[in-house]
Structure formats: C-alpha cells, structure tokens
C-alpha cells in the first residue's frame, strides 16, 4: 500500500505533447479514477505510473520513492488490461501464478495465494482451463486474479470493463467495488465512462487534451464543476449549455430570458455560458422559464427524457414519468435557478457564486 | 547544406575508389597467382611435348621433381596422358593409372576431357571463322583451391597439334599480411575521427579541416602511386618466376601470345639465353622495371639484354619485399578511413552529434537486438554485393583488373543480335518465358490440387497432402540430376514411356524446345507443392458463412469460386507468387544441372549465363555487370508489384 505522486509530469512523443504538466497526489488507500474522452492522456498517465512508458519530464513517486527510472517489476504495482492480456498458452492457474513464480516464491505459498484469489473472484473451478475456453467476464476475473495475488502496493486498471456487454459491465463494476472494500489497496482506474467514474471513485481526475481539468470527489465535481468541460462530461444526460449575456439585469440569449440566479451577486463577465442540468427543469413554471419544442421522447420507466429544441439549440430535460407531453408539442419548463451554473464564455471557467444550501 | 552534400558525395566516391583499389589489388594478386601457375603448367606441357617429339629421356620427370625446389610455391605438378599419370613431382605417383574409385582421380580425368573438348571446339570455331582473335573456349583451366592455392591445367599436344593429355600444376603463393605501418596510421586516423565526434564544435571545425586536408593530400599521393606499385609488384613476381623457369632450362615459346607480360627468356642448346619477343608492353612499365636489377646466375651483367629487336629485362627481389615497398595497402586504408572521417566531420560540423547520440542511446535495446544480425549480414551479404557491383565496372584482362567504366554494361546491353543464343536479350526472353511458364504451372496445379483437397468429407486427404509435399522436400540439386537422368535419350524413363505408348523417343537435349520443357517439367515438379500448401492454408481461413450466404443468395459453384474464393485467396497468394517469381527467376540449379544450357547455351537463363561468364570464361567483371543487371531487373519488378498490389505494405507497419 502506498501513495502515488506525480509532479509536473510531461509526456512527449516526438514533437507531440500528450501529457502536459500533470501534478497529482493520490493518497494511500485512495481509489482514483482518471476519466476523459479518447486521447486525453489518461491511459498514457496510467502507463507512466506502471512503467510501460517513459516519463519525459517531471517526477513520479510511489510511496516515498522516486520511480522514474525504475522498471515495472520493481515498482510493486499490478495492472489489469483492457484486453485482459491473458497468456493463451498457459492455464488459468499458470496465468495467475506467473508473476509469483518469477519472484521465486515457495510453491506452497503460491498455491495458497492463488486459491484465495480464486475463491474471492469465484473462479476456483476454472483453474485448469485455458483462456480461450472462458467467457469475457471470466477472463476479466482471471486478469484481476493475476493482479491480486501479487499483493501490490498499487492496483492499476486500464479500462477493464470496456470489452464487456452492458449487463456484465454493471455486474463487474460491483465486483470491483467490493474488491476494493475488501483489500483497500491504492487504486488508479482509467475509464472513458463517467458512470463508472462516479460509482467507483473516491476521487475523480477529469482530463482533456493532456491536462487535468479538475480533481475532486464525485459529487463535488457534479455539483461544482470548474469549467464547461467537466460540467458537460460529468452527469448523464449531459448538462445543457446556453450562450447568454447580461442585459437589463437578466440573462438573455437565444430563446432564453432568465433572471440572474441569486447566487451570483457579484459582477459578472459580459459573455457567459449558462449550464442547466436536465434534471433541473421543472414542469409548472417558476421564476425563470424556457420555452422549447419537444422532438424526441425517451420513456425510461422511472423518468422521461425529453430531447427538445430551443431555437436551434438541442436541450435535454428530465421529467417525471407521468408528465403529459407529446412529440412536436411546445412546452414551457421552469428552471431551478438555485442549481444552474454560469461559466465565463471565453475562458470556460466557472463563475464562483455563493455556496449553495445543501441540494 | 551544400557543403554537407558535397562532402557526402566525396565520401561516396572515395569509398568507391577504395573498393576498386581493394578489388584491383586482390585481383592483381590473384591474377598473378593464376599467371604464374599457368606459366609453369604450360612450361611443363611444352617440355613433355618436346620430350615425346624426340627421345623420351625422362627430362619431364626430372623437371617436375626439381620444380618444388626451384619454385617453392609449387606444391605439386603432374602430366596426365589418357588415363595414366606419366610424370609427377612426387616420384611415387609417377606412372600410375587413374583409379575409378578415387574421386580426385575422377575429377582429374574429367578436367582432361573437358580441356580436350574445348580444344577441339576451338579448332572447329577457328575453321568456321578464321578471323577470330581469341579462342572462345578456354583451353586451359584455372581452379582456385582453398587457402589461396591455384591449380592450373594446360593441354599437352602431340606433333599433330592434337590434345593428348593435361599438365597440371598446383601452386600456392603466400599472400601478404597487413603491413604494420599502415595499421598504425589507420588507428591514428580513427582516433582523430573519434576525437572529432565528441569535440566541441569550435574545435571540431578547424580540426576537421586539417584532417580533411591531410587525407586529401594522402589520397592524391596514394592515388598516383598505388597503381604503379601494384603493377610493379605483380610484374616483379611474374618475372621472378620466369627467371626461375629459365634457370631450370624450360620456357614455353608461346608465352609471347599472352599479353601484358614484360619479358621472357629462352635458353638455346648451347646454354645461351635468348630473349623472346615482347607484345603489348607500355612505356610506363619499362620505366619502373629499369630501376631494379638483377642477375640470373651466368647471365652477363647489366640490366638490359638486347638481341636484334628483342629486349628483355631482368628483375629481382623477393615477392614479399616488393610488397612491403608497396604503398597500395596504405592507400587503401587511407581511402577507407578518409571516408569515415569525412562523414563524421560533416556530421560534427553541422551539430548533429547530440541528436544522433541521443537517438542511439534511447533506442539501444532495439539496436542491440538488431546488431548481431546486421553486422553478420553486413560483412557476408552487403559487402560482397557492393563489391560485386563494383566489380561490374572493371574489366579483367588476363592479368589485371582495370577500371572499365560502363563498357561491360554497354557490351551486354547494346548487342542487338537477337537471333544468337548468346545474346543478352535472347536470354532475357528465355528467362521471362521460363519464369512465366513455371509460375503459371505452379499456381495452376498447386491451387487446383488444394481446391480438391479442401474438402472436409474427403478421407485420406491428409495422406495426399503429405505425399504431395515430397517433391518440395527433396534437395533440388538431386531432383535436377534425377530428372536429367530420366530425360536421357537412350536410357531415360521418359523415352521408355513414350516408346511404350508408341511415340517416337525424343532427343530431349538436342534442341531448344524439348530442352526447355525438361527444365520446366523438373521445376514444376518441385515447385507446385509450395503453392499447394499456401493455397490450402489460405483456403482454410475463408469462413464458411460466406459460402452459405452466397448459396442462399443463389450463387452457382463457379460464381462462388469466382467471387468469394479467388478474391479472398489473393492476399495470401500474391506474396507467395511474388516470392516464387523471384526464386524461379534466379533458379540456378535446375537449369545448370538438368539441361546444362543445352543445346549450346540456348536454354541458359540469365543467372546461369552469368555464372558461366564468371567461372567458365573467366570474365569476372563482365559477369558482375551481368549479375547487377539481373538484380536491377528483379528490384524493379518487386517495386512495381509492391506499388500495384501493396502486398508488403502491411508488413511494413
């Protein structure tokens, strides 16, 4: 168990700067999820921690040791790959015990550890099979087993659930969460799926374009996104954005005319982006309302997502399941001004307002 | 930028010259060894002929026994007449008959027969075309033995000028070792180059300029001196051997027919030396040899001997001493190291050192993995090839390599007499025909059999597959010899079959088309299994669903084959066909061993012809140019097919 610290880390491929100036402090026992769209540098960062990529600039420390030039085998980390990377010519048992055998562990100890890991993951009766005889979910467990038996200081997960079907993904997500509860090992997890991030992480690191956009607990990111990117990335369905300007003491934009939310009392930049989450639209009006035309309805049972159009801008609103609304209809929805967000349009940074009351 | 390119070009030219110098000096040494051995062989043959013409008094045997003492380089010498060794430098061997069981005896007998055959062919040729300047078929045989020794064989003629036997001499010239002074200079130059590599730019540039100047001077001086030096040393040694022969009282009178020798002596019945007419001696050579002196026992003193319009020079000094005085080695190494130093200097002056070094260290694992193979291939494949290409620009006349520029290429490519079977374009046509026929047959048969075998319900298909691979497994030179036997006119199996069926037996090696077919049949036999295996593999990787879908869509057997099987086979077949084409184009063994180019070289393809030019007609430069042309044809072909099919593009990812 150890902490992982990155200080001003850069990664360059030729002239291409893939990771820029990342500094992260991951505490001992933390579960940190690196999340972001494809190409944002999260996998590269993970691989730098693993030792599979060289660090162009900056320092990486595991525990108190600077490990920039330490090879992966000496970093005491274990990794679960997206494609599981099981050795096809070895049985499950051999796969799991490979790393232990390399470290010259006594056979009795190996058998004990393999048995324990197999029990925890429920793969004990698969031990003598070869990977090609296993299903996707089973293979994923074997990959995790291989990482667990090493009892490393840090677990690294590289999009482990991306290759599974939806139902299995939900199942395995729970398994990973349970495993973490049990072992409490420092974990760094990479995914592009914000749902995984929200459900598994103690802390989320949102990345885009090689830069850290924001670090924080899941709900903190949800409630107080630092910029439009994080705001639009976290939360599903995604936040709606409107381009507005302050005019006559109100926020005005295309199809939008709202009072300035009371939280934002100070001076505001001239050009703003207004962010409203789909769940913060209300039927029944209110202090601020927006008129929109319903294009598509997605009845999901517990809620109804209405994909609407506000003068050319696509807007999603989440409504109660029994809301009476039809496609093509024009409706007027109220906006919960307590929970909207304002961002400086040029810098995309959030405008700070007075802290909210607990939502 | 301009300076860099200029320096790079200069470096390349320097390297080429260095290689040429290298080739030339090696060639000279070898040529010298050949000439000496041949001279001695001819001397022996002439002596024997003289002895037989008069009263056989055993002088040939005495000469042979004395030779190893007079000329230490001689290892053995013999005269073969018919089936019997009539004289031998080892007395216990003299007088014995050749034995059927000894392989070396068999080889000797074959040599004698070959020389005899060549001689009679030459007679025919000269009768046909009296204006012939050179004998088209070599009447002497020079074979290299391992360790630098040379075995020279010359024909023994009787007084009707018919070849009745063979005189064979084995000589081993001691090859020189690297002169130490040159080594020291070389190390010094390399050390300087390394210093430049790491020095700061401010030092590197002026130091580099100094080094460049030094090398330029050294090179110019060496260039002007080395050819003389080499020519001199070779001549010295040749003349020394001649002198030794003269001492032994024997010199072939027809030595003057061979150009580029300086001089020769004869001794008449009264023991007086007499000179032999010189041909093709150039002024510069005379100037060189005048500086040396010598005495040959009882010859009245003085450097030059004249009688009438004949002149001869005597020269002295041991072979090794001459070589030590020679600067050719130094020039060689100066060239090479100069090239290296220039290259490094250019890099240093342009400030690329750091980039190069960091690229090197950051990839050192990769380079480490790659290095052993590259070094091995560098020495044993690349250098010989470059060497070979350089050889193509030289011309080996009997004695020396000479820079010949593009004359070899011109000679090969500008001969437009298409009807002659010796013509390059004719052979090109034959080669294309050969390659095309073979590849089509290989693919046709291989694919056909593979399609038959690609049947889940066919029992015993495993057995067929294994058995049909056998032709590929058998060594191809064995296959060639077997098929050659099968096509034998009188005793071959093929003619027996024809006879059994009632057809006329064919003289397979008598004319072009039958001979060509023997080659194609043999190569097809051993070539189709490869295509069969590749096709089988590719066929088995086509998913069945495609056929089922097509079947449901209503496609017929033929349509399924045309639209599914064939297109999906292409990715695997195309590279195999390309490889097969290159292999067939260069398939030496079959042509050489089955038809042997019969009749009269007509079925020779380019590569066997190149071989013959090198090893049977002794024109190494010509053969090297020939081979380079072959290589360029293939290179062009590969690049072309790559562009069209993109076949190897994936492999470059």
């Amino acid at each position, binding site marked *: 168990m150890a902490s992982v610290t990155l200080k001003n880390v850069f990664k360059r491929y030729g002239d291409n700067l893939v990771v820029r100036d990342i500094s992260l402090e991951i505490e001992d026992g933390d579960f940190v999820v690196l999340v972001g769209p494809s190409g944002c540098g999260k996998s590269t960062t993970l691989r730098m921690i693993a030792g*599979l990529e060289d660090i162009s600039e900056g320092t990486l420390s595991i525990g108190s040791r600077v490990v920039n030039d330490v090879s*992966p085998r000496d970093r005491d980390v274990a*990794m679960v790959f997206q494609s599981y*990377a099981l*050795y096809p*010519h070895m049985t499950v048992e051999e796969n799991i015990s*490979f790393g232990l055998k*390399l470290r010259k562990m006594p056979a009795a100890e190996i058998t004990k550890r393999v048995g324990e890991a197999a029990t925890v993951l429920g793969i004990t009766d698969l031990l003598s099979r070869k990977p090609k005889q296993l299903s996707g979910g089973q293979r994923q467990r074997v990959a995790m087993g291989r990482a667990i038996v*090493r009892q490393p200081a840090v677990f690294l997960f590289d999009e482990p659930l991306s290759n599974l079907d939806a139902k299995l993904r939900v199942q395995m997500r729970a398994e990973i969460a349970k495993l973490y509860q049990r072992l409490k090992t420092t974990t760094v997890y990479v995914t592009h799926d914000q749902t995984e991030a929200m459900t598994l992480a103690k802390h989320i690191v949102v990345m885009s374009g090689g830069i850290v956009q924001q670090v924080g607990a899941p709900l903190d990111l949800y409630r107080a996104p630092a910029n439009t990117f994080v705001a639009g990335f976290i939360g599903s369905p995604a936040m709606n954005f409107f381009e507005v300007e302050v005019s006559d003491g109100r926020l005005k934009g295309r199809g939008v005319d709202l009072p300035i939310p009371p939280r934002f009392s100070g001076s505001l930049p001239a050009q703003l982006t207004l962010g409203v989450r789909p769940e913060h639209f209300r039927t029944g009006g209110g202090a601020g309302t927006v008129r929109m035309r319903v294009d598509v309805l997605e009845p999901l049972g517990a809620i109804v997502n209405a994909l609407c159009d506000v003068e050319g801008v696509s807007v999603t609103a989440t409504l109660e399941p029994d809301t009476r609304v039809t496609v093509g209809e024009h409706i007027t929805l109220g906006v919960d001004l307590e929970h909207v967000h304002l961002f400086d349009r040029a810098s995309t940074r959030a405008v700070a307002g007075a802290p909210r009351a607990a939502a | 930028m301009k300076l860099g390119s200029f320096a790079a070009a200069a470096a390349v030219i320097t390297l080429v010259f260095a290689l040429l110098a290298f080739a030339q000096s090696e060639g000279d040494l070898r040529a010298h060894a050949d000439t000496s051995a041949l001279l001695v062989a001819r001397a022996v043959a002439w002596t024997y002929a003289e002895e037989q013409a008069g009263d056989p008094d055993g002088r040939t045997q005495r000469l042979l026994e004395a030779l190893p003492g007079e000329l230490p380089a001689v290892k053995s010498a013999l005269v073969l007449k018919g089936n019997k060794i009539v004289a031998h430098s080892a007395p216990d061997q003299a007088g014995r008959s050749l034995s059927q*069981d000894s392989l070396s005896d*068999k080889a000797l007998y074959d040599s004698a027969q070959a020389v005899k055959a060549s001689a009679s062919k030459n007679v025919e040729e000269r009768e046909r075309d009296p204006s012939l300047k050179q004998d088209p078929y070599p009447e002497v045989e020079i074979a*290299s033995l*391992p360790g*630098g020794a040379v075995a020279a064989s010359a024909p023994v003629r009787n007084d009707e000028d018919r070849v009745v036997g063979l005189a064979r001499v084995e000589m081993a010239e001691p090859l020189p070792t690297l002169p130490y002074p040159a080594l020291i200079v070389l190390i010094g130059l390399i050390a300087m180059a390394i210093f430049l590599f790491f020095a700061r730019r401010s030092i590197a540039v002026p130091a580099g300029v100094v080094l460049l100047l030094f090398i330029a001077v050294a090179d110019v001086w060496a260039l002007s001196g080395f050819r003389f030096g080499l020519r001199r040393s070779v001549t010295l040694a040749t003349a020394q051997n001649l002198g030794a022969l003269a001492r032994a009282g024997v010199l072939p009178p027809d030595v003057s027919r061979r150009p580029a020798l300086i001089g020769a002596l004869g001794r008449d019945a009264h023991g007086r030396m007499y000179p032999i007419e010189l041909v093709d001696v150039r002024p510069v050579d005379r100037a060189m040899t005048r500086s040396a002196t010598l005495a040959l026992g009882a010859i009245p003193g003085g450097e030059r001997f004249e009688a009438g319009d004949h002149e001869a020079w005597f020269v002295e000094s041991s072979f090794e001493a001459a070589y030590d005085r020679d600067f050719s080695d130094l020039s060689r190494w100066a060239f090479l190291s100069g090239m290296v130093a220039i290259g490094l200097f250019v890099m240093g002056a342009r400030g690329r050192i750091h980039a190069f070094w960091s690229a090197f260290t950051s990839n050192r694992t*990769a*380079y480490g*993995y*790659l290095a052993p*193979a*590259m070094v*091995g*291939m560098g*020495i*044993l*494949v690349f250098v*010989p090839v470059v*060497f070979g290409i350089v050889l193509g620009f030289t011309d080996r006349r009997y004695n020396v390599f000479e820079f010949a520029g593009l004359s070899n290429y011109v000679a090969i490519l500008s001969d437009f007499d298409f009807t002659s079977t010796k013509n390059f374009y004719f052979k090109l046509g034959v080669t294309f025909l050969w390659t095309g026929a073979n590849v089509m047959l290989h693919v046709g048969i291989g694919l056909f*059999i593979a399609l*038959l075998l690609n*049947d889940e319900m066919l029992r015993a298909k495993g057995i067929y597959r294994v058995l049909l691979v056998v032709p590929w*497994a*058998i*060594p191809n030179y064995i296959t060639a010899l*077997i098929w050659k*036997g*099968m096509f034998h006119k009188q*005793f071959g199996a093929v003619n*027996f079959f024809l006879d059994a069926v009632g057809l006329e037996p064919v003289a397979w090696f008598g004319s072009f088309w039958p001979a060509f077919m023997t080659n194609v049949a043999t190569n097809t036999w051993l070539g189709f299994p490869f295509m069969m*295996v*590749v096709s089988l*593999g590719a*066929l088995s990787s086509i998913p*069945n669903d495609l056929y*089922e879908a097509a079947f449901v869509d209503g496609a017929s*057997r033929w349509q399924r084959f045309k639209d599914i099987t064939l297109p999906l086979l*292409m*990715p*695997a077949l195309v*590279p195999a066909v390309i*490889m097969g084409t*290159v292999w067939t184009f*260069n398939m*030496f063994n079959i042509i050489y061993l089955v038809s042997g180019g019969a009749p009269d070289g007509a079925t020779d393809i380019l*590569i066997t012809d*190149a071989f013959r030019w090198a090893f049977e007609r002794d024109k190494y430069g010509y053969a090297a140019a020939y*081979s380079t042309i072959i290589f360029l044809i293939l290179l062009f072909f*590969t690049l072309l097919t790559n562009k069209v099919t993109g076949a*190897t593009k*994936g*492999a470059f990812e």
Partner: protein
Amino acid sequence: MSGSVPSTATTSTKGERALKHAFLAAFTVAVLYPVAWVVKMALSPSQGFDASAIPIPTNPSLDNFRHVLFELPFGRWLLNSAIVSIAATALGVFLACTSAYALSRFRFPGRTAAMLSFLVTQMFPGVLMMIPLYIIMDYLHLLDQLLGLILVYSATAIPFCVWMLKGYFDTIPKELEEAALMDGASPALVFWKIMLPLSLPAVAVTALFSFMTAWNEYILAAQFMGEAHYTLPVGLKMMVGEFSSEWGHFAAGAILVSIPVVLLFFALQKNLVGGLTAGGVKG
C-alpha cells in the same frame, strides 16, 4: 444424408469424392514416380541405366548403399553437413528471432531501412556474391573451415527468416508482453517465456527452411571447401561427373541425403501451413 447435402466449397457428394480419389491417386503416383525410379536405381547393382521404365529393381541388392557408406567418405561428408546445417540453423534462427523482435516491437530511426534491406537481399543472385565472398572469406582465413560455411549460410538465411518471424510476431498482442513485464519478467524472459512459445509454428518453419537451405547448398560449399571438409551435396555431385557417372551410387547417396530433410518436413508439416500464412506470406 450424404446425397442431400448440397456441395459447398468444403463438402462434396459421394460421386465427386470418388472422382477426386481417382484423380488424386493417379496424380500422386505420377508425382512419386521419380522417387520410385531413384529407389530402383539405388537397389540395382549396375552403374548405367537399367533398360526399363518400371520402377522395380530386377535383382535388388544393397551393393550401392554399401559402397557409398563404406567405400566413400560418406560419414565424413555427413558429419560436415550435419555440423554446418545445424549450427547455421541455430545461429540464423536465433539472430533472425532477435532482429524480428526488434523490428516488430520497437520503433526507431532506421527501422524501415532495415526492413527494406532484409527484403532486398533476398533478391541478390548468388553468383554476384560468390567471388567477393571468396575473397572476404580468404581474408578472414575462413576458407576450408566449417565455421566459414556456417557463417555464410546463416547470413544468407537471415533475411527470409526475419521476414516470416516479424510477420508472425506482429500478430501477437503487445499487451501480453506488457502484462508479463508488470508481472515481473525481465525483457529477456518476456522473449523466452511469452513470445517464443507463442511463435512456435513460425519458428519451426523458419528453422526448417534454414536447415534445408544449408543441407542442400552446393555451389558455395564446392568453391570454399577442400576435400576434408566436403559436405554431402559436393560429395554427391562428384559421383556424376561430366563424362563419367555412377548412377547407382548416386541414387543410393541421394536417398541417404534426402531422408533427413524429408523426415523433418513430415514432422513439421503441421506447422507449415500456419507458419507460412501468418508469417511472410501475409497480405
């Protein structure tokens, strides 16, 4: 059932199968005829040709074999060939493996040039290299030394082997190696325990090709080796001279020489298809 199955590309009707068997059997017999002929010659005591095309010897005897094995230095030739072929195969395949691994897994300046050079050297006509090779080998004092042949054979085998092996290595996912690295394997162990076991078909095929090339090579061996170091092809060729031939002995020798390679072929032929299609023959 069999009659109602439609013939697709991989199934056939009974009638079709019968036809196929007839054709294939006849074809196989025709193809193997020369082999039978050689066997007949080997077992017939005369040295000329037998006046019949039937491949059955009239008075079979092992005389030819006896002569070849005991009266000619066959044992020495065999030893020389074996040493040279095995060593050249081991060396060539090893060097090719490491090079192919580097070309497959690493990206570095000069990589394309290296791959191009491996491709292009396969096209050199051997004749072009023979004279310069002779001179170089002489300089290195490797003429008439088995080591010289070994080095030349492995060097000439490398390009083809690298090409095939690299293609095969490319199909192995890089994550497997990364997982092994994470598990604690050193790069060398990754190569030995992961890459190689998974590449066995391709390695087997390249080893087979290298061995065959070395075992069957005639010209270079004839030029470079003296009598004490003759390999099997050179010895065999001497029996069929230009003007005098001993066909019986030659046939016996040919059979003895071919057996090892044919056996090797059979042993590895399962891998032949896999190695060829996934490797260099890949489109």
